């Protein structure tokens, strides 16, 4: 310093530079303003601030990498990151600045003019401030450069403050973001918990409820205040399930999760079936502090299941009590169901029959190929000649015995799968009865045939002599007999005729039994028929001193059409 003017100039320079330090807490702005003033006052061509990465902690290893935080003018910046070697560090040592050698110190090379001289100020342990000035510049005076050391130190502190502030700001922002994120997450969680269809319940280690969501009110009828503080298994579980639930709670405390179903007691006395997913409830360090239980209302499902179960029971009962064997096979003829009567009829138990090919079980070997063809044909065409009708076929018992069955086969389609149900009845006895009846009928037929032949023979054998008796009697009556004799002869003839009539009646009876009897339609004299009947009855009654008289209405015509012989017989059998 040569004179007062110089000192004044230096003081004003340092003053201006000092006040240019720390004008912003933003590192870039702080550097930009300081460098702007520095460059104007020092008439510099370029200035840049290089900083090591901000240490994450006190024990972090010093870095050799530096990053350009701010450089002006930008057009001269050709690198943003550099690596500084140990020799330079050693050369700098505790010095506040060094003038770099243009030829050897290439690590901060910019596209500066060859006349430019680079000076490196140490910014403590933060990094460096690099400036370029003309080689002829008065700035290169060592005293002038040295005079800036305290300003540079002050600038270093300001940059440190900026970095610390930015770090703190960044951490604060991160914390705020995390907090905001947590709040959002918490709100989301609350919203989810509030709105999920599942009931949620949290208990402490003793089983006391410490949290429930709104859905629990729908499930149990108890509100939050009524539930919290109570033991869930006392309030919501019936006595018969209570010990089971207490045991399950103890499993939670051992870290075991579980899923099960349970009827819950509703406040209104009804029962709500729930599916329960119970997990251990842990704190942030993983310690079990209770139980977290999720409930899903499955009452409707349970009702439906019960109905199905009852329906299945009924169906099974029907199947089991059916007099018929009921067998169900799939499209490949493998047995899928086999009822009690199937066991009885065929001799295989259900366990033996299930999943076995039907043909090997009950179909006689000679019929198995046609059975298989029938199945294949139906699967291919949907047509089956034996389906939906009663048919009789021979079947095979486990013992190998073949026996007749009556069966009805129906196809069943469930979704894309085909099944066939067979209702099978053992008709061994019925067949035997039928055969006995047929034989009896055949015997009866033979007996009747013999009877008819006997009657025909008998009729023929009697008619022949009787025709001779009646003919001879007729001749006798015309042989001049006395009245007494004639009367006797006439009576003989009448009796002969009657005998012939009886023989005819026997034949008629035979015809009636055989369903072969027919009435005659021929004209005859009704007056003569009645006169003859009068005479026959009078003759029979002459010993009883009874007179038989006839009276014929004049309106009745003498000649009528009818079966005179059957009419005559009918009169005789009239009481």
């Amino acid at each position, binding site marked *: 310093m040569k004179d007062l003017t110089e000192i004044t100039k230096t003081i004003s320079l340092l003053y*201006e530079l000092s006040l240019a330090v720390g004008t912003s807490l933003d590192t870039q702005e702080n550097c930009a303003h300081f460098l702007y003033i520095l*460059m104007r*006052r020092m*008439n510099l061509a370029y200035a840049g601030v290089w900083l090591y990465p901000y240490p994450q902690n006190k024990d972090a290893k010093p870095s050799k990498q530096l990053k350009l935080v701010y450089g002006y003018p930008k057009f001269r910046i050709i690198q943003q990151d550099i690596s500084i070697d140990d020799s330079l560090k050693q050369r700098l040592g505790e010095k506040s600045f060094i003038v770099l050698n243009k030829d050897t110190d290439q690590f901060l090379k910019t596209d500066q003019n060859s006349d430019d001289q680079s000076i490196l100020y140490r910014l403590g342990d933060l990094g460096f401030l690099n400036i370029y000035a003309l080689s002829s510049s008065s700035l290169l005076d060592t005293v002038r450069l040295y005079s800036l050391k305290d300003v540079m130190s002050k600038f270093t502190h300001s940059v440190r403050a900026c970095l610390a502030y930015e770090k703190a700001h960044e951490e604060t922002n991160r914390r705020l973001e995390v907090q905001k994120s947590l709040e959002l997450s918490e709100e989301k969680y609350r919203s989810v918990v509030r709105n999920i269809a599942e009931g949620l319940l949290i208990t402490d280690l003793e089983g006391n409820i410490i949290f429930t969501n709104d859905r629990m009110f729908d499930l149990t009828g108890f509100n939050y205040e009524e539930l919290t503080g109570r033991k869930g298994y006392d309030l919501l579980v019936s006595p018969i399930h209570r010990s089971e639930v207490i045991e399950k709670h103890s499993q939670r405390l051992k870290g075991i999760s579980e899923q099960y179903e349970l009827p819950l007691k509703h406040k209104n006395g009804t029962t709500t079936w729930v599916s329960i997913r119970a997990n251990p409830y842990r704190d942030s360090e993983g310690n079990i502090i209770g139980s977290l239980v999720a409930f899903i209302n499955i009452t409707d499902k349970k009702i439906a299941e019960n109905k199905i179960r009852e329906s299945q029971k009924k169906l099974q009962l029907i199947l089991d009590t059916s007099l018929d064997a009921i067998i169900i096979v799939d499209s490949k003829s493998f047995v899928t169901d086999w009822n009690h009567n199937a066991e009885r009829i065929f001799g295989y138990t259900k366990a033996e029959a299930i999943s076995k090919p039907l043909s090997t079980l009950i179909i006689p070997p000679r019929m198995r190929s046609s059975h298989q063809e029938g199945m294949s044909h139906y699967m291919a065409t949907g047509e089956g000649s034996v389906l939906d009708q009663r048919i009789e076929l021979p079947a095979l018992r486990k013992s190998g015995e073949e026996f007749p069955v009556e069966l009805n086969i129906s196809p069943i389609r469930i979704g894309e799968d085909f099944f066939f149900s067979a209702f099978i009845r053992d008709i061994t006895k019925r067949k035997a009865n039928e055969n006995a009846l047929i034989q009896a009928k055949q015997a009866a037929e033979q007996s009747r045939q013999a009877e008819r032949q006997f009657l025909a023979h008998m009729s023929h054998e009697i008619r022949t002599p009787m025709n001779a008796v009646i003919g001879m009697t007729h001749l006798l009556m015309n042989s001049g007999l006395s009245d007494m004799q004639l009367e006797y002869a006439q009576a003989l003839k009448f009796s002969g005729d009657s005998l012939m009539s009886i023989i005819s009646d026997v034949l008629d009876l035979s015809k009636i039994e055989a369903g072969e009897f027919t009435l005659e339609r021929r004209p005859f004299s009704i007056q003569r028929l009645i006169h003859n009947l009068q005479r026959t009855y009078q003759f029979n009654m002459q010993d009883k001193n009874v007179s038989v008289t006839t009276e014929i209405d004049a309106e009745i015509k003498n000649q009528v059409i009818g079966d005179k012989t059957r009419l005559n017989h009918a009169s005789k059998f009239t009481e």
Partner: protein
Amino acid sequence: MYLAKPSIQTVIQTIQDLSPNPNEVISLLWGEHTSIDFELLVQQLNELGVQFFGGIFPGIIHQNQNYTQGVIIQKYSSSSPPKIITNLENQDLSKMEQGKTALVLVDGLSSDIAVFLSRLYNAWGNVVNYIGGGAGSLSLQQQPCILTNKGLLENAAVICLIDQNIELSVQHGWQRLQGPIIANKTHKNVIYELNWQNAFEVYKAIIDQDSANSIQSDNFFQIAKGYPFGMEVEGAEAIVRDPIAVGEQGELICVGEIDNNAVLDILKGKTQTLIDSAQQAALDIKNLTTGQSTQHIFVVDCISRTLFLQDDFGKELDVIQQSLQQTNTAPKIIGILSLGEISSTGNGPIYFYNKTMVLGAFSES
């Protein structure tokens, strides 16, 4: 080429006589009292396909004369059309092509000149030499003054990248009267406080000790033009800041920005020192261009120097011409009387000067 009473026809004829090729641009530097229909001129130049740029200034310089009317027409080699900057604060400059010399004309009454120049330097640095100045009216009323093929623009700038080298000298000749004083409260081009007191009161107290007349708000400009501020620059002349008005609260309004806490001197001008500085600038150019073929000398002289030197301003131009004549038999001198001067010192950022003279010697392309 200087046209004292230009018309659209004579301007166009002159340009056509220059026969600019596609790699040449025409500069048109207008004295503010020139009467011409700029809108029509721009339209016709555009129709002719002429690449041009320019501005309206308080005065123009041709040889050793200055004029408030007329036009100076000059042809430059340029491989790209002039760049028009309508947003001084934000327009992207980084993608612009580079050249050897940037002739920068800016609205001298814009408040964003410092930002603009800073951004320009940030983008191009000192691989380009800068010369230019602030356009506008001596009335200090802001109005459209930057001439482009889009018309006359206000609050704008135009940059012509010229493929010719330039040698520069910046001088002002203002001497330190008193200092340092601290501009402890400023905003852009307004000083509110000096030495932690009302700016005008501090300024007045210093000026009144030196000036024959006490400085008041009503005679502020007349007296202040002889007492500008200087901002120290290491190894170079101080950057002059010209106070042009005093506000109601005693704030001082300057041409160009003053940094907060800047250490200032109050400068004082003497006719001879200013003329000497002009001579020094010319001599600098002489030395720098020894052995080179200079096409023309471009002078950017602050209008306030004419106001200060008044009738002696001619001497400044004479001494420039004479100094250059000693080394150059027929120097062609053109220039502008500006509202602020633009130059790079050749080593540091681009500055916006006041009350300063920038001499630039364009070499033959």
